């Protein structure tokens, strides 16, 4: 093996029934580098990672790891770990019922006995050296998500891995936490660890990576040095075409509408999770809640939809005072809500695409008025076509669709109820760039047709492109409102960071 190379994968192929997930893919990882693995959903990133970690068997190809002669066969995650390949997944793969220290060491101890004292001492030291705010004896489930993620990384670090795979590690962290993670990654890089970084956030790739490998449709597009690959080019390589429509979207109609008649108005609305706040949205307006994760932006829209227990406030919908304390009441008032966490709150995994599409409409029609089969098939067909949902047929379980298509199904579910006011919480999280643009366009089109839309996204750029008014939150309070010319990235940042002014400019 060449000097300085810790991992090579050559000619990797993997087929699933009906899908060629990986075709002849090569990948090289050098010592002490952060190597971003990029591609849209379905490009084969996760499959490649799963082959590398022994979750899947490869159908063909060779893997070489530094320090081991000849091609290696990786049989299981344990086996991968033994060979120096550690992985930290997007969904925390630790055990919430065990302590932090145990989570660091379980599965890689030798001997029959558990050395509690020694384990806790070592954990304490490591947590301190990596400045992770957790105590060794603390139950993992009581730590925040970000801390749990860091514990997972600390575990990998302690295993003295040569290859560290970070699979979407930042998707539920806020900016400060992301920065902490990055400094941890740089620290590890300087110790000579090769890091494979899988993410959807382009800025983060440029902030921390040295090299980028791009996959598309299960095939290798190429390997590039970061400085030689401008962002626009990266996107076009991922999508396989020159990117169109990243130019400004036309949101004039929505901007004009914002001063018009209110569709929904809340005074002092509060829930078990959200502090009292005032909010209004006009007919045909697109506005958004922005702020860091945990600022209360999701909790606020959940309060509007009564997704959490509503504790107070006066709500007016279309000029009439309404009592909305259950989701069904919100739905009857013409409100739709696409939740932040698609897997947990959105999809009904085992049910078909059709059933997932008609669900909300069916609930609104009531328990004693089931839709007949023919109607449901027509509805499903209509929306599968309209939103270009890629599915084998209506009866396909939604769980076998890609993330972007699942999201479209949930969107279809709410569009089918013909809401007057649609709340979209992170509709573009974890889905590919192409679908992102499609969804942004759709939002503006709906607004033009008179629908009010509240849009939430972690990517400020995306918010600026779609919303004509932004409500900025910090520490569970609304700290500012931006519209028109005030809508610039720096202004938003300034307000989020706490400039103190209610209206910048």
């Amino acid at each position, binding site marked *: 093996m060449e000097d300085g190379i810790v991992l090579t994968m050559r000619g990797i192929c993997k087929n699933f029934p009906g899908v060629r997930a990986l075709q002849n893919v090569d990948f090289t990882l050098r010592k002490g580098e952060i190597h971003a693995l990029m591609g849209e959903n379905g490009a084969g990133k996760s499959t490649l990672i799963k082959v590398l970690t022994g979750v899947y068997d490869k159908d063909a190809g060779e893997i070489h790891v530094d320090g081991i002669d000849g091609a290696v066969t990786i049989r299981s995650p344990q086996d991968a770990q033994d060979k120096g390949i550690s992985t930290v997944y997007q969904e925390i793969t630790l055990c919430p019922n065990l302590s932090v220290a145990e989570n660091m060491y379980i599965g890689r101890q030798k001997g029959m006995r558990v050395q509690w004292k020694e384990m806790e001492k070592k954990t304490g030291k490591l947590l301190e050296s990596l400045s992770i705010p957790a105590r060794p004896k603390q139950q993992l489930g009581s730590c925040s998500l970000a801390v749990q993620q860091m514990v997972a990384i600390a575990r990998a670090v302690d295993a003295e891995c040569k290859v560290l795979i970070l699979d979407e590690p930042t998707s539920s962290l806020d900016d400060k936490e992301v920065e902490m993670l990055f400094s941890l990654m740089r620290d590890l890089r300087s110790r000579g660890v090769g890091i494979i970084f899988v993410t959807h956030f382009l800025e983060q790739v440029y902030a921390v990576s040295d090299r980028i490998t791009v996959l598309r449709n299960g095939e290798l597009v190429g390997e590039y040095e970061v400085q030689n690959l401008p962002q626009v080019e990266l996107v076009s390589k991922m999508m396989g075409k020159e990117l169109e429509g990243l130019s400004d979207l036309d949101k004039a109609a929505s901007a004009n509408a914002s001063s018009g008649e209110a569709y929904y108005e809340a005074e002092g609305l509060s829930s078990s999770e959200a502090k009292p706040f005032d909010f209004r949205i006009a007919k045909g307006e697109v506005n958004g809640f922005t702020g860091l994760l945990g600022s209360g932006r999701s909790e606020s829209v959940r309060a509007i939809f009564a997704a959490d227990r509503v504790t107070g406030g006066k709500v007016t919908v279309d000029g009439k005072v309404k009592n909305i304390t259950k989701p069904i009441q919100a739905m009857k008032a013409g409100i739709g809500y696409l939740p932040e966490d698609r897997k947990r709150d959105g999809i009904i995994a085992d*049910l078909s695409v059709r059933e997932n599409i008609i669900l909300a409409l069916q*609930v609104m029609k009531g328990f004693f*008025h089931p839709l007949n089969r023919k109607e449901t098939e027509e509805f499903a067909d209509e929306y599968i076509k309209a939103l270009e949902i890629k599915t084998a047929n209506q009866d396909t379980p939604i769980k076998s669709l890609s993330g972007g298509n699942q999201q479209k199904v949930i969107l279809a579910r709410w569009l089918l109820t013909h809401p007057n006011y649609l709340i979209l919480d992170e509709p573009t999280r974890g889905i590919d760039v192409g679908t992102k643009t499609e969804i942004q366009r759709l939002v503006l089109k709906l607004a033009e047709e008179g629908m009010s839309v509240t849009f939430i996204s972690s990517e400020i750029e995306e918010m600026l492109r779609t919303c004509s008014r932004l409500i900025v939150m910090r520490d569970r309070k609304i700290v500012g409102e931006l519209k028109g010319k005030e809508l610039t990235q720096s202004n938003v940042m300034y307000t989020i960071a706490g400039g103190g002014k209610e209206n910048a400019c």
Partner: protein
Amino acid sequence: MPANKKKSSSGFMQKNSQLLIPLVAILILIIFNLIRDPSFFSIGMVTNNDGYPVLQGNLISIFNGASELVILAMGMTLVTAASGGQDISVGALAAIAGSALVKVLKSTEVITPWTVALGILACCAVAMLFGAFNGTIVSVFRIQPMIATLILFTCGRSIAYWINGGATPTVSSPIITAIGSFIPGCPVPTPILIVIFMGIVLGVLFKTTTLGLYVQTVGINQGAAKLNGINPVAVKLLTFVILGVCCAMAGTIGMSRLSLINHETLLLNVEMDAILAVAIGGNNLGGGKFNLVGSIMGAYAIQALTITLYAMKVPSTDVKAYKAIVIILLVVLGSPVVKEAFRKLKNQISAGRFLKEKGAA
């Protein structure tokens, strides 16, 4: 009739592999019995004690004997789907319901069709109440169903005993006898008719309400169900109340067969068989999607197995051991690992065999 089913099932199987296990189970039993003794399937008409012609034969015993189990399996399927767990108190609840019925019948001097109807209504009401009790613990307090129903499992039969003041009273009335065996003039055993009736009631319920969709949605993803305006607590509660009605009907049949209520032995261990029927029917015991037909077939398969063993002169006390072996064989055949292995095997030899078959044809 089963032969027809087999033919049409090959295409249908592709889509609905869930029904594979119960179908295979029933098929194996049929073939086994055909080889062993073809007369196993003969159905005859005999005249019973009251002078009416009635159907008789092993098939009739299977359909008749499985009645309580089929009714309970239907309710159990719904509970399993919605709450991802099983109700282990169905036998005890059936005993309570039966006792309530007997209590009503005993409190009137003459048993008329009206008092029986009143009694059945009362026993349904009692069973629904206890069902709602189970359902409340499961849905409101979020306790796993097996644990929640452990309460009634522990003390249900004692409550039944208590209802009848510590006795095992007998009820002698031609109406009750008719419910337990035959309605004069009708050659089909009444329990079979009750099963058909319950099947129709549930069928109508599924057709006129969104129960099926709601139950599956809640079973698969409760949080998402809530955000789509479904009340998971109400849905779960409803499934338990429906199961309560099923228990009441099963208790009524069981009591009527003997014309007496024995709180200790009425439908003893039936909960295990009912859960088994749900599992053999290809339903995931962890909840979610369900197939009622599968559970019903599972229940008949269990009863067919029992009757086959009896026909082979296996003592009733030993039946359990043989049943266990068959169950294990079935679930092993249906397990994901074995299925996957079969699939691989099929893929490997499919090309060759396909050619061979063509040549043969």
